[in-house]
C-alpha cells in the first residue's frame, strides 16, 4: 500500500510504501514518535489506530513548537 506523506517539520512530500494498515504502522516505519505529530487526512485529524487506504494523502503536523 502506498501513502503520500507531507511532513510539516521537514517540509517534504514523499510516497511511502507501508507494511501494515494503521497510522501507527506508518509512523513506526518512518521512525516518528506519535507524541510529536498530529496526523491529518482530508483535513480531518485521525488517531494512531485509524486504518489507512492505498493512495491516502496524509499530513504530519509537528506538535513541537520551534523554539
Amino acid at each position, binding site marked *: 500500500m502506498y501513502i503520500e506523506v507531507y511532513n510539516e517539520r521537514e517540509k517534504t512530500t514523499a510516497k511511502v510504501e507501508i507494511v501494515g494498515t494503521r497510522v501507527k504502522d506508518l509512523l513506526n516505519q518512518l521512525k516518528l*514518535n506519535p*507524541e510529536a505529530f*498530529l496526523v491529518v487526512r482530508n483535513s480531518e*485529524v485521525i*488517531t494512531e*489506530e485509524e486504518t489507512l487506504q492505498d493512495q491516502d494523502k496524509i499530513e504530519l503536523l*509537528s*506538535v513541537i513548537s*520551534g*523554539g
Partner: protein
Amino acid sequence: MQCNKCNNNAVIALQHGSLCKSHFVDYFEEKVFKTINKFQLIGRNEKLCVAVSGGKDSLTVLYLTKKYLEKNNIPTNNLTALAVDEGIDQYREKTLVDLKKFCEEHSVPLTIVSFEQELGKTLDEAYPIINKDANKKPCNVCGVWRRYLLNKHAKKLGADKVITGHNLDDEAQAIIMNIFKANTALAARLGPISGIQEHDLFIQRVKPLYFCAEKEVRLYALLKNFQIEFTECPYSKEGYRHHIQEMLNEFEHQYKGTKQGIVNSFLAMLPLLQNQEKQSLPTIQQCSKCQEASNKNICNACIMKETIQNA
C-alpha cells in the same frame, strides 16, 4: 476509533479514553479554566499581560484567557499582549505577522519590544560575543533577556500578572532538567505560579496551560483554526532541553501518563522544596545600572549588555 462520549470519530486518544473534535475542545477548555480557578491564577480586578510569540501556546492561552474573562463577566479591557522580538533571522518575523493579525481579530492591544531596540544587538549578533569564552549556546542569552524584557515591560504596562503559554511538556522538561542538574533553587521557582518570593520589582507569572500536553495544545489550535505557520527556531535543536524533550516523548509513547506523573509528583513536593529554598534566598535589590530586579549589584541582562559594549 470512536469518541468515548458520542458516535463521532475520535481526533485524539488520551490516557483515559478517546475524544472527537467537539468533546476534545470542551475537555481542553474546561481543563484550562479549572487550572485558573484551582490555583487562583486570575483575579477579578487584575490587569493581565499575556506573553505572546505567535506560536500555538501563546495564541491558545491568549484566546482562552479572554474567553475565561468573558465567561466570568470580567471586563476584557484589562487584558493586553506583550511580545519580545529576539532578532533571530528568518524566524521571529514570521510568527509576529500571525500574532499581529490574531491580536487585531480578537481586539487585544499588542506591544512588541525587541532585543535590538532595548539592548543594542539582536540575539544573532549578541550571543557569539557574550558566549565567546564560555562556548555556550544562545539559549542562555535569550532566556535572560526575554525574562528581563517581559518583566520590565509588563510593569510599564501596569500589569499585575504575566500570563504565559507554558504547557505540561515544558514543565515536565524543566523539572527533569533541574533534577538532572541538581538545581533545586531553580526547581523551586516552577509550578503554575512562578517564583517563591513576592517583590514589587517582579510581576508574578502564571501558567493556565499547566496541565495541557503540547500535543493537546497543537490540536486545540488546529481545531480552532488559529493561523500558525510552522517555523522552527534555528537554535532549538542545540539546547539541553531538546534532548530531555525527546527522551520524555519516548517515555510518554511507551508509558502513557509519564509527563503528567512527573508534574503531579513535583507539585506534591513543591511546598517542601519552596520552604527549603526560602531559607537561603538572595536579597532582591535594584540593579545599579537599570534599576530592575537583581540578586547582585548589576543584573545579568546588564552584565551581558556591558560585555557587548566592551567587545
